């Protein structure tokens, strides 16, 4: 199980996002249905958010303060970036779900890079077409083999990370990702899409 403090953090962030997406006043009940956790967490989260000065509670309605609005914007931005990113690989509803969970647990750097990926229209070029020593970003890993995908992810080959070809060899490429070097065969390099 998640620790309570973690659940609280997620609930708080979700709540801010929902409030940010809606208009001025939001009825308490609609927040509870939107978040789908025990109402004890919701009331706990509301208490915390109120103490932190992010929301105001008026009778059965909740309203964001100015700081709360900024914070909500931040979370919404993260959510949109992720959602947009996942839209490329799946349908809209799934993209929403994926973004929904990842937004709480993703580093700013990856977010920044994913944003960069999303601002570009094209899906990126295959790594085999990249020139030597050109800093670029991994935009996508397109292999249909989920076992290979997992292996690459666990090695740190992940969308949003910076990649750089240091050597071209006849059977593939040698790349640098986060200070680590890898030899990738041609068949794998083809499945890695990068943007400059």
């Amino acid at each position, binding site marked *: *199980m*998640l*620790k309570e403090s*973690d659940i609280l953090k*997620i609930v708080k962030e979700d709540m801010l996002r929902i409030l940010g997406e809606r208009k001025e006043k939001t009825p308490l009940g609609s927040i509870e249905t939107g978040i*789908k956790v025990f109402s004890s967490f919701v009331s706990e989260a509301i208490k915390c958010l109120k103490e932190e000065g992010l929301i105001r509670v008026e009778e059965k309605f909740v309203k964001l303060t100015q700081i709360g609005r900024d914070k909500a914007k931040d979370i919404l931005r993260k959510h949109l970036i992720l959602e947009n990113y996942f839209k490329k690989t*799946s*349908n809209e*509803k*799934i993209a929403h*779900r*994926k973004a*929904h*969970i*990842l937004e*709480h*647990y*993703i*580093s*700013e*750097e*990856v977010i920044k890079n994913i944003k960069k990926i999303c601002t570009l229209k094209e899906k990126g070029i295959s790594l085999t077409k990249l020139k030597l020593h050109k800093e670029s970003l991994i935009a996508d890993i397109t292999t249909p083999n*989920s*076992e*290979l*995908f*997992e*292996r*690459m*992810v*666990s*090695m*740190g080959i*992940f969308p949003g990370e910076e990649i750089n070809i*240091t*050597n*071209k*060899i*006849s*059977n*593939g490429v*040698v790349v640098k990702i*986060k*200070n*680590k*070097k*890898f*030899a*990738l*065969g041609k*068949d*794998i390099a083809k499945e890695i899409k990068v943007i400059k």
Partner: protein
Amino acid sequence: MRKLKILLIGQPNVGKSSLLNGLIGSRVIVSNYPGTTVEVIQAEKIFNNTKIKFVDTPGIYSISDRSEEEKVTEKALFEEKVDEAIVVADATSLERSLYMALQILEAEIPTVIALNFVREAEKKGIKIDSKKLAKLLNIPVMLINPLTKRGINELVDIISRIKKRKGRSFKIKYDDHIEEAINKISSQIKETSIPTRFIALRVLEEDEDFYKYLKDKRVIEEVKESLAEHPKVAENVSITRYGTASFIAERITKIVPLEKRLQPYGSLRLQEKIDDILFRKIWGSFITGLFILTIFGTLLYLGNFIQNILMDLTESFLSFFGTAEHSITAMILVQGLTGLTAGISVALPYVFLFYLFLGSLEDIGLLSRFIVNAERFLKKLGLSGKSFIPLALGLGCSVPAIRATRILSSKKEQFHTASLFAFTPCSSRIAIIMGIVGFYGGIKLAFSVFATLFVAGLIWAFFIKKIVHIKSKYLLLELPPYRKPLIKNILAKSWIRMKDFVYIVIPLLILGGIACGILNVTGFSKYIVEPLLPITTWLGLPAMTIIPLVFGFLQRDLTGAMLLSVLGSKISLAMTPLQIYTFGIASTIGIPCIIALGMLIKEFGFKKAIVLTITSIVYGLLFAGLVWRIVSLF
């Protein structure tokens, strides 16, 4: 006394072996993990009345990956009770280490993170707040440096106080659909000691090995239907896991700009330079080939040198006892001793020194570069780059080489590589080719035997590739930075790898020698000449040569001596150059000897081993017969 079993887990080259060395100290008691395919080292030491057994697992990136190394680690994790796991983490790439640590936590095994390479990370401007990490994950985190022994005692302290730790550790929260699926599967899991959440995740990650824990496999289909929004649920699981890991890593890492004078340009540039040379299109392969040939030439030379000394010793030993040279016991004894000398002269240079070279290459960081360069050629034969290690070892002795195929990730590929030892001349076969063919037929003839073996091997490999259908392995290999190797680690590793050979192969070589001696002395060997006449006729060889051909299978090193004893010392008179050449091929093609057959049985089972041995020998004999017929046409 209290007993604890601690697992060391980490990526390749993260410093697990060095840590083990640091933990255990000089009195390393190492042994192989029983019944596994990849080497797992265990070592025990007593710390304040607690006997701690450390299990060093093979380097892996994830426990969800389905390679042999992962399976071994999984076995070590779940088959016997493990008290605790030490995840050795790399401070220079924390995300990856955390990815695995999170998996271990999912398996609900008490975990300690030992953070290595902290100084290296600081040199790169990466500062890690280990206290915050410990708080976030709610597990102990220790900064270590196995070379300076920093943090080692504290680590032991933490491990031995394991029972007193309380509180839940961090868990990843997946997307609510996935969480729902996890709950659904969890309710369908049989009684087992493995945590249900972990099993459920592995089932979602499509690891079929975990389907056996399900009460009803139909739950998989049900869950898949309800996960219509997640067509690639396995990928989503790993994305969330990595996302969580990088999220945590970011929260505890600070990147500080480096002062100019601290920037490690010099050594970094040297590293890049070496790689630039090693990965140059033609030079890379050339250097790799040259390196391997040099190593091998050295081994060949040392092998001969040691064998000569030992043979001299044997002779003087026998004459010291003044045994009549032709007495029955003496003949049997001589053959047995030949086996012993052959064993030692193979074990010392080929096996031990080979592994010493290999271990050094591995620890320096060169081995992975060589594997990349070798992959280019081996891929054409349907093999992965790694198989160059057993193949090179096969030039020394096929028996440890067959065992070394374990480093390859699939059984099919292991078998494919092992089948090539039918054509890789081992040191005893090189001795036949050089000592018999080369000596009596000239060096050109000896080289044509090598060339013929090579061609026969290529044809075989292509043929096998066609029938075995090995899923072509992709090249995906991390290239570690070049490092100074730890001699002690390499020596220990080499000894472990050689131990099998000393305890199993050498006694068998002696027995094989004695068996040959007995068969010879009792005159039994003469009875096989008549019935096997078709073979010698097909090969166009004198009928008596069947004796060294057949009995060579018991003890390859005796082939030469037996040929001399059946044909007399004037071989060049008894056989034409073409016959010498044919004999050379016939006695060096096919699975070399009964000990190799035994090792094949051990690794691949009786049926496969027998089929391979018979097929390769028949193929070899057919090939040898065909070749001399074709050659004599011209």
